[in-house]
């Protein structure tokens, strides 16, 4: 599995990432860093505790990092969730949380599949 195939499976923007970091090698290194990124778990912890202020911040951070790494689908889901919690409010549409969860899992699976194929 190539990194490009990995990105294609999650409809990500690999070329955008390569452009940002100037090189495929770096693109790979940075995309792999996402495997250890804490913003998703912080988001879910905060939601679990009903702390929507911190949840907003974590979602905002997740949205930012996904934008930079070219995880377009997860970025879009996180963006919607971010806006639903702006000001520290509980999202009316809990579907947004599920959607983010689903996209995150899809992204992580693809990244892990790529990592194990190397």
């Amino acid at each position, binding site marked *: 599995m190539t990194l490009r195939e990995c990105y294609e499976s999650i409809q990500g923007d690999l070329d*955008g990432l390569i452009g*940002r970091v*100037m090189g495929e090698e770096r693109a790979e290194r940075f995309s792999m860093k996402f495997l250890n*990124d804490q913003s998703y778990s912080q988001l879910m912890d905060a939601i679990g505790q009903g702390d929507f202020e911190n949840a907003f911040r974590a979602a905002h951070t997740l949205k930012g990092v996904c934008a*930079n*790494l070219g995880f377009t689908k997860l970025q879009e889901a996180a963006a919607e969730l971010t806006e639903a919690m702006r000001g520290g409010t509980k999202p009316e549409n809990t579907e947004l949380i599920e959607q983010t969860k689903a996209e995150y899992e899809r992204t992580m699976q693809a990244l892990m599949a790529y990592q194990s194929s190397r």
Partner: protein
Amino acid sequence: MYKALIVDDLEINRELLAEILEDEYSIVLAENGQQALDILTTEDNGISVVLLDLVMPGMDGYQVLEEMSSRSLLDRIPVLVISAESAVMAERRCFDMGVMDFIHKPFDSVLIRKRVENMVELVDYKNQLEEKVREQTDTLREQNGLLREQARKLKERNTKMIDVLGAVVESRNLESGEHIKRVKGFTRLLGEQLMQECPEYGLTQEKMEIIVSAAALHDVGKIAIPDSVLLKPGKLTKEEFEEMKTHTIRGCEILDNVEGAWDEEYGRYCYEICRYHHERYDGRGYPDGLCGEEIPVAAQIVGIADVYDALVSERVYKGAFTEEEAFNMIQGGECGLFSDRILAGFAHVRAAFKELALNQKNHAAQ
């Protein structure tokens, strides 16, 4: 190498930016707002540009900006905000707070490089210009001070030379330079009184300084009067008196010949005083028979000062009058008519005139 401070709570973001910039900048990293401020405090001038995230736990980007603004750091250190924040209001707020640029995530590495480079260059250039302006302002201020000091010295020397000139003329009168000193003193007393009492004359302290200095030359024309007339002990004949009167016009001829020695205003006052200090308010003075306010106020003032001094001093042709006699003679029009306003001013400084006359006399006797 310029130092760039990268402030972002997420490691991936910090590393991404560091990779983009590390070829051209030495990178300093901060995980949150407080750390960023600590670094700005300790490294102070060392940081050339700040790349700032907005949404961070603890102290966020806005608070960092507020703190930087209150410490006047934003004038010196440009800030580039890099945020996933899509709301236009957030961007506006950042610019209102004084950030120099705003980039949305995801960012493009080439644009980041370019924009950071532009910011650093711009602020560098601005700082250099300000430094240069400061240097030049200092130099100018210094030079201005020197010039003013030189102008002051020149003026002082000019006044002294004029006093010397007056004293030279007077020495032919077999008098010391005391008459000049006294006339200048009386002129100042009366002139400064009129400055208060009669604003319509438009006298100012600056003008008074010039008038007092120019008063030293009121009799400069006497240098051209022959000894037989100037030093005659008794009463002058009609012809001799006519000759004596020409000292006013001859003084002006001398002044005309030294044109260029002083500025226009100074020259004008010298001329007025020389020519008109024997004019009287009723038109019965000389040389031109000017009437009332046709007589320049400077000449009117020096006119009284001159007459008063002549009265209270001993001369080859007369003894000294007492202060009371002198005062009454002038007020009574025995030495020619003066304007009521000037006589009123004279009455108000009578005591000071008396004191000055006495001091000078004692001084001369010592």
